[in-house]
């Protein structure tokens, strides 16, 4: 019958196109691991622990880049998570529906801003602000405290790990808000009514009934934010300083992240080992992205079903 053949053609065509997706993923992974192989075999695990990055002597250790990525991501999460979860709670529990809709939309628009525009804004607005006002203030107040004072020590240049972290915080904020919102909204009404029924205030209801239920999902949202922050390149590269100095404790030090190292050095990495080392950093980013994204989705799915609303 004609329709039988039509169906088979259709199925064939659709399947062919659809299978390009897993094929591409496989291709990406294989090609990059192959390109990184010389570096992987030469440096082994030392790649992650050594901070000597010397293209001239061909000694490559990406610890400084890893450190920069971890620090900026940590700063981003510490700043963005409370604000995002707070906003999410407000939008779900406190705001009237139409207002919540508009406000959510506005926050989501933040996610549509391209990362290079964040970089531009960060470079021209945040860097001078931090260099002239914020960082001297932090140094004179928190910088004198015993343990955490070390975070705010050293000469202030404006382009450093702190500003990198702040711009990342702004960038992951809409993602965290969107996912946290979904997760919190997914908490069954019965939970809330139970608390309110015994006379709890709104905040007590949130804290006692909603948050414990949503906690896993919120952690998932944060993990997604971490994944996003890890891979973010353009915004960070303009404000983070791009200096491969050794690992210190200060946030005021210009640094690199793994992604910004690739962006800066990829086009000029001549010499097979140098090129291979750069690709190995990309492979590491790939690995982290794969693991963290899978983990995050598992966490979120437990609470809120398939995550929507962040086709971003």
């Amino acid at each position, binding site marked *: 019958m004609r329709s039988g053949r039509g169906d088979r053609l259709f199925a064939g065509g659709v*399947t062919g*196109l659809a299978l390009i*997706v897993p094929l*591409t993923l496989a291709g990406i992974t294989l090609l990059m691991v192959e390109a990184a192989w010389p570096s992987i075999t030469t440096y082994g695990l030392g790649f992650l622990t050594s901070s000597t990055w010397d293209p001239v002597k061909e000694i490559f250790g990406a610890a400084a880049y890893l450190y920069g990525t971890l620090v900026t991501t940590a700063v981003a999460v510490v700043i963005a998570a409370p604000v995002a979860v*707070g906003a999410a709670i407000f939008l779900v529990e406190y705001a009237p529906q139409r207002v919540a809709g508009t406000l959510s939309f506005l926050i989501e628009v933040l996610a549509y*801003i391209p990362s290079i525009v964040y970089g531009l804004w960060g470079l021209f607005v945040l860097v001078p602000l931090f260099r002239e006002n914020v960082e001297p203030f932090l140094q004179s107040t928190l910088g004198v405290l015993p343990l955490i004072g070390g975070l705010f020590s050293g000469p202030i240049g404006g382009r450093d790990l702190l500003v990198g972290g702040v711009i990342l915080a702004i960038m992951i904020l809409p993602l965290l808000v969107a996912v946290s919102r979904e997760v919190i909204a997914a908490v069954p009404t019965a939970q809330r009514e139970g608390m309110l029924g015994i006379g709890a205030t709104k905040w007590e209801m949130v804290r006692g009934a909603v948050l414990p239920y949503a906690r896993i999902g919120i952690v998932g949202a944060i993990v997604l934010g971490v994944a996003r922050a*890890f891979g973010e390149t353009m915004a960070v590269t303009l404000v983070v300083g791009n200096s491969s100095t050794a690992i210190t404790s200060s946030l005021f030090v210009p640094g690199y992240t793994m992604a910004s190292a*690739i962006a800066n050095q990829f086009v000029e990495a001549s010499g097979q080992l140098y090129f291979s080392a750069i690709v190995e950093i990309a492979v590491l980013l790939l690995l982290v*992205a794969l693991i963290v994204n899978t983990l995050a989705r598992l966490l979120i799915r437990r609470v809120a079903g398939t995550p929507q609303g962040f086709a*971003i």
Partner: protein
Amino acid sequence: MSAAAIASPSWRVRRRRRVADTVMAVLLTAATAISVGLLLLILGYLIVNGLPALNLAFFTERPKPFGVEGGGVGPAIVGTLIVSAVAGVIAIPIGIAAAIFVTELRPGRWAAIVRFAAELIAGLPSIAVGVFVWSFLVRGLLGKYSAIAGAVALAVIMIPIVARTTEEVLRLVPGSLREAALALGAPRWRVVMRVVLPTARAGVATAAVLALARAAGETAPLLLTALGNLFFSTDLLRPIAALPLQIYQYAASPYDDWHAKAWGASLILVAVIALASFALRAFAPRVPR
């Protein structure tokens, strides 16, 4: 704060609880205000700094030599349009096909594989996609920097977005519609192409526009594939300019004229993206975004 505390009749405890409630309400409102305020702040800077740079020359001329004022980002605007369009031509059919595969054809394990692969690709850092396409096309197959390499890199980024949103939209189409069509004797492929897809038309358009908007703003993959071009070019096999690349070069430069142009180009990019998402909201409000 236990059930006992809630039940406590002591006015001291009650007042403490009320104060805590108010304080938290204020903090939560502040958190929202900060989030929304950030957007308004960034948009404000874009408008104030970007508008003055927008003149006719900005849109129509090509860049002047380093340090010379004037000229424009015409090649970059044309380049972004071309590269995004080509990326769309590649990515949209593949993304829709993947969504159809997963929702309509549903051969069990393979659907899960395709969907999982799409999600993983979505999580890849865009610089890594650039590295891949550089190795595969720029150094490999094509042997040079080119617009098509840039388009392929953007397409890789777009496919998961198209696939995921289209999938959600297809699922919203009532099963009864499909069953009715099948009951009338239509072959499967006709049901999908003639019934399901047209019903989900708005949502699929949403998916496409969202993905295009995302692709238009990407810089890192283009750095390694499209290279950039000082001249207007429509040749897919040559390097091509693009707005995000231009913004990057201009932002890091010391020239005030270029800084102003970077703001202007950013304003255009964000304006186009915002317009697209506003339009979507107006015409396809029920679609999960």
